C-alpha cells in the first residue's frame, strides 16, 4: 500500500521534559526500541527538546543522517508542532515531513504510576508516528491574502478598547453592538475600584473616540447573523435591527438634507407608552422611543417596536424638518469582509432569585450589586441617593453578601467559580455608603477577601480603616420583618465561632456572573469552544489567552472568564494586537490539508458534493466524463468528503487514507503489513 517513493530515513527524538516524561516511563527503552523500527536511522533523547539545544539536535541530525522524516516524541502537537516544524525546516526538510508522538499529555501525565504500561504505550506511539512519517510528503502551505479589516463583536469596555487599538493601527474596524448604545456594563457603574474614578468620566471619552475614529465603523443595534470563511477572509452577515429612527446620514440619503435624529428628545416627551428601562435594571421608566441614558453614543433614539403602539405622536413631534422617525422600517442585512474577529460580548449576573435563602425579588430591600451601582450613581434613577426600595428611606446598616452564588457547588443557578470582581466592588460599595451617608455602617459578610490586584490589598486596608465591618461567615439566610421591611441576616462569625443574626436596613448581594445566553449562538457561529462553565475558551490559558482554536478569532473581556476592567482592557489590547498581526502581514499560510481528487478513481457519483459544509466541491466535465473538482480556497480540510467517497477517490493531504491505515496497522500488526 505504501506510496513512499524514496527509502525512508527517519530520525526519532525523544524528550524527557525534565521529569515530566522521564519520571514515568523509560526513555532509554523507548529509544532502543525506536532504533529497531523500519526506516529509523537515528534515535536521540534530550532533556528539553523544545529548547534551542534540543532543536539543534534535530537540525544537525537531519544533515548528518540525511533524514527525510522527523518524529519527536514529546508533549502535544497542539503545543509544539509549530516549533518542531520550524526545526525540521531549518534542517532543510519540508516542514510537513514532521510527525509528533504525544507521550506526555496523553501518556506520562495520565499513567504516572504505571511505568511498564506507559513505556509500552510510548513505544507503540513512536511506532505509529514512525509509520506515518515514512509516508509523509512535501506539502506547500497555501498562502492567502488577508482582508485589511477587522470585526469586533460587543462594545463594552473590552470591545471598545480592542476596536480603538485596531483602528489606531490603521485597520478598518467594524464594531458591532446589539444594544442601541455602546459602553456595556461599565457604563452602568458609578465609580470604579481601586482608584474610585467615576466610571462614566473615564468611559465617555473612550466612547466619543470610538464614535469619531475614522477607521471605526460603529454599528449599534446590530447583531451577527452569519459567519462564513476563514482567517483572512471572513464574510460576516450583520442584522441591523429596525431602529425606527434615522441618523443624519441616513436621512440625507433619503434626500432629507439636514434631517435625521439630533437627540432632542421631543419624541420621547410625547410618546404615551411607558416601559421599564433595562439600563436602570427596571428601576426607572423609559418610553417606547428612548435612549438608555443621556451619555449614549451614538446619540440616537430607538423605537422599541415590541411596545410601540404606532400612534404616530413621535413622528409629529419630530417634525417635517428632521423627519427622523420612520415607523415602517424593517431589519436590514449587511455583509462585511474582514480578516480577523474579536469577540467581546461580556456577561450577565446570574438570576440570583434562584438562591431562595436570600430572598431577592421576595424582599424589597435585598438588591444586587449592579442595582446598587445605579442607586448610588448621580445619573441613576434616584439621582445618586441610595434609598431603600421599600420606603425610600436612607439605609444606615447595609449588609453585603459576598460570594452570592459564586464558589457554590450546589448547581441550579449557582456557579462553582469565583466571579473575581465582587470582593472588590463590595469594598467599593462599602466606601461609597460611608462617604455618602453619614453614620452608615457597611457589614461585609465574606469567606475570603480576594484583593489580589495592584493596589487592591491597599484598597481593602483603606476600607477597613474607614470603618467597614468585616464578618467572616457566609450568609445562611435572610428574613424580612414584614412591617419594617428590615432584614435579619443569619450567619456564623466563624472567627468567634458564634452564630450571628444582625438586623440590616438593606442587603446587597454580590451576585455571581455568568456568560450571556447568546454566547452559545455566537460561539457556534464563530467556531469557538466553551470551557466547562460556559465561558468562551481561549487557545491556551497561559500561553495564548486571547486566541481561540479557530485561527483568526480572538477573545477580549469577561466573555472569556470573569475579570475586572483593568484585566479586560489588558486582554482587549492583547487581542487587538494578535488580531492585527495577520492583517499587517497581509497574508496567512493555511495548512495545506485540503482535499484532492484522484481523477482516475472518481466515478463522478457526486455524493461528496453535498457533504462538504463549505461548498468546496463540484462535479465538472473532463475528457467526456464527470469528475469531482475541489476549490482549494474553500476547502478547510475537515476530510468529511474523504471519509465518505466510496471509491477512495479523495486524497486528504497529510491525513491520507494510506497514512491513517499505516498508523492503524502499525499499532495492531506491529508494523507488519506495509
Amino acid at each position: 500500500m505504501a506510496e513512499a517513493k524514496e527509502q525512508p530515513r527517519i530520525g526519532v527524538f525523544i524528550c524527557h521534559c525534565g521529569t515530566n516524561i522521564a519520571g514515568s516511563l523509560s526513555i532509554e527503552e523507548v529509544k532502543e526500541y525506536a532504533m529497531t523500527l523500519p526506516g529509523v536511522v537515528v534515535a536521540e533523547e534530550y532533556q528539553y527538546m523544545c529548547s534551542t539545544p534540543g532543536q539543534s539536535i534535530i537540525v544537525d541530525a537531519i544533515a548528518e543522517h540525511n533524514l527525510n522524516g522527523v518524529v519527536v516524541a514529546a508533549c502535544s502537537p497542539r503545543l509544539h508542532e509549530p516549533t518542531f516544524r520550524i526545526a525540521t525546516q531549518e534542517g532543510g526538510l519540508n516542514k510537513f515531513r514532521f510527525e509528533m508522538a504525544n507521550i506526555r499529555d496523553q501518556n506520562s501525565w495520565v499513567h504516572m504510576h504505571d511505568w511498564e504500561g506507559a513505556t509500552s504505550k510510548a513505544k507503540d506511539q513512536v511506532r505509529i508516528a514512525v509509520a506515518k512519517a515514512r509516508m509523509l510528503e512535501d506539502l506547500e502551505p497555501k498562502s492567502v491574502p488577508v482582508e485589511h479589516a477587522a470585526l469586533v463583536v460587543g462594545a463594552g469596555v473590552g470591545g471598545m478598547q480592542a476596536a480603538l487599538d485596531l483602528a489606531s493601527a490603521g485597520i478598518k474596524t467594524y464594531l458591532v453592538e446589539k444594544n442601541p448604545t455602546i459602553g456595556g456594563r461599565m457604563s452602568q457603574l458609578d465609580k470604579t475600584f481601586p482608584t474610585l474614578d467615576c466610571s462614566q468620566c473615564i468611559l465617555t471619552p473612550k466612547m466619543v473616540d470610538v464614535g469619531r475614529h475614522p477607521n471605526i465603523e460603529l454599528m449599534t443595534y446590530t447583531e451577527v447573523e452569519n459567519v462564513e470563511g476563514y482567517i483572512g477572509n471572513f464574510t460576516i452577515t450583520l442584522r441591523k435591527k429596525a431602529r425606527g429612527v434615522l441618523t443624519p446620514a441616513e436621512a440625507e440619503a433619503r434626500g432629507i438634507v439636514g434631517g435625521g435624529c439630533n437627540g432632542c428628545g421631543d419624541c420621547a416627551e410625547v410618546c404615551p407608552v411607558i416601559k421599564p428601562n433595562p439600563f436602570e435594571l427596571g428601576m426607572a421608566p423609559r418610553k417606547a422611543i428612548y435612549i438608555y441614558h443621556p451619555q449614549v453614543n451614538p446619540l440616537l433614539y430607538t423605537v422599541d417596536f415590541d411596545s410601540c403602539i404606532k400612534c404616530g405622536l413621535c413622528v409629529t413631534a419630530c417634525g417635517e424638518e428632521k423627519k427622523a422617525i420612520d415607523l415602517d422600517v424593517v431589519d436590514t442585512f449587511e455583509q462585511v469582509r474582514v480578516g480577523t474577529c474579536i469577540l467581546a460580548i461580556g456577561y450577565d449576573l446570574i438570576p440570583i432569585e434562584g438562591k431562595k435563602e436570600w430572598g431577592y425579588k421576595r424582599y424589597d430591600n435585598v438588591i444586587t450589586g449592579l442595582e446598587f451601582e445605579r442607586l448610588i450613581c448621580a445619573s441613576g434613577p434616584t439621582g445618586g441617593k441610595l434609598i431603600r426600595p421599600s420606603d425610600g428611606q436612607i439605609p444606615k446598616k447595609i449588609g453585603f453578601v459576598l460570594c452570592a452564588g459564586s464558589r457554590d457547588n450546589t448547581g441550579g443557578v449557582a456557579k462553582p467559580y469565583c466571579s473575581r470582581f465582587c470582593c472588590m466592588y463590595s469594598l467599593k460599595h462599602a466606601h461609597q455608603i460611608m462617604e455618602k451617608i453619614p453614620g452608615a455602617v457597611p457589614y461585609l459578610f465574606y469567606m475570603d477577601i480576594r484583593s489580589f490586584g495592584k493596589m487592591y490589598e491597599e484598597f481593602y486596608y483603606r476600607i477597613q480603616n474607614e470603618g467597614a465591618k468585616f464578618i467572616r461567615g457566609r450568609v445562611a439566610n435572610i428574613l424580612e420583618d414584614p412591617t419594617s421591611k428590615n432584614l435579619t441576616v443569619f450567619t456564623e462569625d466563624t472567627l468567634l465561632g458564634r452564630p450571628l443574626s444582625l438586623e440590616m436596613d438593606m442587603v446587597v448581594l454580590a451576585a455571581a456572573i455568568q456568560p450571556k445566553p447568546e454566547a452559545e449562538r455566537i460561539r457556534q457561529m464563530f467556531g469557538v469552544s466553551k470551557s466547562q462553565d460556559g465561558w468562551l475558551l481561549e487557545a491556551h490559558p497561559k500561553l495564548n489567552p486571547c486566541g481561540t482554536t479557530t485561527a483568526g478569532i480572538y477573545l477580549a473581556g469577561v466573555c472569556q472568564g470573569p475579570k475586572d476592567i483593568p484585566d479586560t482592557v489588558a486582554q482587549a489590547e492583547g487581542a487587538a494586537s494578535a488580531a492585527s498581526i495577520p492583517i499587517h502581514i497581509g497574508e496567512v499560510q493555511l495548512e495545506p490539508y485540503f482535499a484532492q481528487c484522484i481523477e482516475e478513481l472518481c466515478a463522478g457519483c457526486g455524493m461528496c458534493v453535498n457533504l462538504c459544509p463549505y461548498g468546496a466541491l463540484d462535479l465538472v466535465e473532463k475528457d467526456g466524463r464527470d469528475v469531482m473538482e475541489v476549490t482549494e480556497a474553500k476547502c478547510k480540510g475537515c476530510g468529511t468528503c474523504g471519509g465518505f467517497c466510496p471509491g477512495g477517490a479523495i486524497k486528504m493531504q497529510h491525513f491520507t487514507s494510506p497514512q491513517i491505515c499505516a498508523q492503524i496497522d502499525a499499532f495492531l500488526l506491529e508494523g507488519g503489513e506495509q
Partner: protein
Amino acid sequence: MATEKNYGNPELEAKLRDRYLYTDDTNPEFLNDVKKVSRTIAHMCYQCGTCTGSCPSAPRSSYRIRLFMRRGVLGLEKEALNDPDLWLCTTCYSCTDRCPRDIAPTDVIMAMRNLAFKYDIVPRNFLKTVQLIYTTGHGVPNNDVNRSAREKLGLSRDPPTTHSYPEFMPGIQKIIDHYKLKENADRILAEEGQ
C-alpha cells in the same frame, strides 16, 4: 509528644500544659469512617459557616456544626465523639440544603453518632427506643387511653401494625439482633445502672 516541663509541681504543670494540636490527638481514619457512613464529601468543607448560621440549635447552645466538620477533616475523633453537643442536632437539614460545597453536614453528624455508638457513647433515650421497638415493633407503643379512643373512632383497638399482628415481631427482632443492637443497648443501660 508534649514537652515535659518537669516543674515538679503537677498542678502548675497541668495549668501550663502545652495545648498545641499533636498528631497523636488525631485518628487519620476518622475522616474516612465519617465519609463512608455519611456518604457525603465531608473533606470538602471550606469552613464558611453557612451551616452554623442555618442551625436552630446553634444560637441556644454551644453546638457548632462547623466545628464538627472541622474535627472530621482534622481527624479529631475523640474530641468530636465525646462532645455532648453531638446530640443536639435536630436533623433539620437546613445546613444540608444551604451548604455551598454541597456537603450534607447533617449526615456527617449522623455518621459521627453512629461511630460514637461503637464506643458506647450514646444518650440513653436512644437506647430506650431500641428496647421499645424490640418488644412492641413501635417506638411509641399503644396505651389504654388511646385504645378506647380508637374504639370510639371506629378504629380497631390496636392498629393493623405489629400491634395487631404480633407474628411479625420475630422478623423485626431478628433484624435488630443481626446488628446486636438490642444486646448492646441492654448492656450499656445495665452498665449505667438503668
